[in-house]
């Protein structure tokens, strides 16, 4: 291979870049730390599932300010079906712009439910998103599809995520 000026530049940058990245990792101990311990991972999962469960409750009407006409998210979206979180951001005709899921959640709260919008950065909104996304885990991310209804994970029993159950009836 004939060494042109451009080739020489690429070779030099190819050697420098990995070294520079290693230097950055060394300067940031959080990114280079050992894998999390089993206890830490369990604690992280519990924190996530706590938010998922809170989102599921909100989804089914536990926050009165989210409705003035009795409707809850779960009326139209059982098991978070047809909320299509994996297709966001996408153009929402009703909002007139490319929007994230949280904007559509607030639109549903304000318009069909006649309720008060959630703080888009608040814990309740994070919980709502956590529930919707968790119920679509493993689904293909495909931003921009607005006309198709996607489906959530198939739920045989329980809440669709790890949950101790109420012990009543079939909720074991």
């Amino acid at each position, binding site marked *: 291979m004939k060494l042109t000026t451009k080739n020489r530049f690429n070779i030099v940058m190819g050697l420098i870049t990995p070294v520079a990245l290693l230097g950055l990792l060394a300067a940031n101990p959080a990114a280079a730390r050992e894998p999390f311990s089993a206890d830490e991972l369990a604690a992280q999962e519990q924190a996530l599932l706590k938010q998922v469960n809170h989102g599921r409750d909100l989804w089914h009407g536990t926050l009165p300010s989210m409705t003035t006409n009795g409707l809850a998210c779960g009326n139209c979206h059982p098991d978070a079906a047809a909320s299509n979180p994996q297709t966001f951001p996408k153009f929402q005709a*009703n909002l007139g712009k490319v929007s994230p899921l949280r904007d559509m959640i607030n639109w549903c709260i304000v318009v*069909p439910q006649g309720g008060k919008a959630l703080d888009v950065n608040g814990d309740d909104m994070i919980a709502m998103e956590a529930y919707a996304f968790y119920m679509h885990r493993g689904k293909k991310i495909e931003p921009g599809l607005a006309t198709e209804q996607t489906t959530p994970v198939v739920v045989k029993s329980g*809440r669709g995520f790890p949950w101790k159950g109420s012990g009543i*009836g079939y909720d074991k």
Partner: protein
Amino acid sequence: MTDFDKMSRREFFTITGKAGLATLAASAIGTNFGMVQVAEAAVGKSKVTPFRFAILTDAHLFSQPDHKFDTMLEKAVNDCNNMKPMPDFVLYCGDIAQNGLDDQLQKGKRILSKLKMPLKVIPGEHDWYLDMGSAWRGHFGSPTWSFDHKGVHFIGMNSILVRDFWTKAGMSAKERMDVMEMLESPIAGPWGVREEQLDWLKKDVKKLSSDTPVVVFTHSPLWDYYPRWNFQTEDAPEIRSILKKFERVMSFHGHVHQTVYNKIGNMGSVGTLSTSWPWPYPDVKLAHPWSQMNRSDPGNFEDGQGAQYIDLESNFTAMTHYQPFGNMLNPAMKNGFKI
């Protein structure tokens, strides 16, 4: 002359409005409204006289005055009254109320009383579990009935009966209702018509000849569509077995809030549009995917909802027409479909 022809609309609502007297009154005019009254076969071996009937379902009325769902049920009633030809009668497939409250049932009865034709009703779970059907029976009579009309045998049954999960848990009536209101509640378990109605059904059809056209109404589908959301009836196999002697059976059901068709053996099964909200399709591969409606527009409150009417022909084929408020039917359904 048929059962419905024999009574005026005023007489019909008088009967359905007096639960305790419903069976007695019905018996007096030769109509079978109650579980104690088993139909005597008056049909079969003869052609159907063509006629139309309509189906409304799943209004889910709330207690608030001037709720948007009131308007949509009123609109569907108006649509029925303006059908040409006019339906001979209207069948309501359950869930008049959202929370099982008497005022919600009263409101539904008041709106439905504007129909210009007779009405028959079966219950849904939202009508039933606050007081175990007491108020509903007071307004609409027995949830189990049959009648004959122009050569066709019509059957209605209560398919939302669950096993007792509330007594042992010490739940209040409101708590029981709350459990039943949530579609994906894991607590209540499967629905069914249960033994008493299965026995009634056996007796009801015992004397009917196999060429009798039979139409059956339930709130939930008589096939295993998606059990998670009670898009099924646990003892549907027993129902289908009892009805298997007939050449053809048509089943119409509420609950699914969507268009859907399926066929098992001699039974064609049609889901119906609600007047409240559309439900998404579950992750199930439909045997007849053409019967799936387009995705509803969330910005249009009326989209994915409406009424339906069925034109029965002399050979007992049925042209089923969905009549949505919005334009959400795929081409295969726009002009009706045969079952």
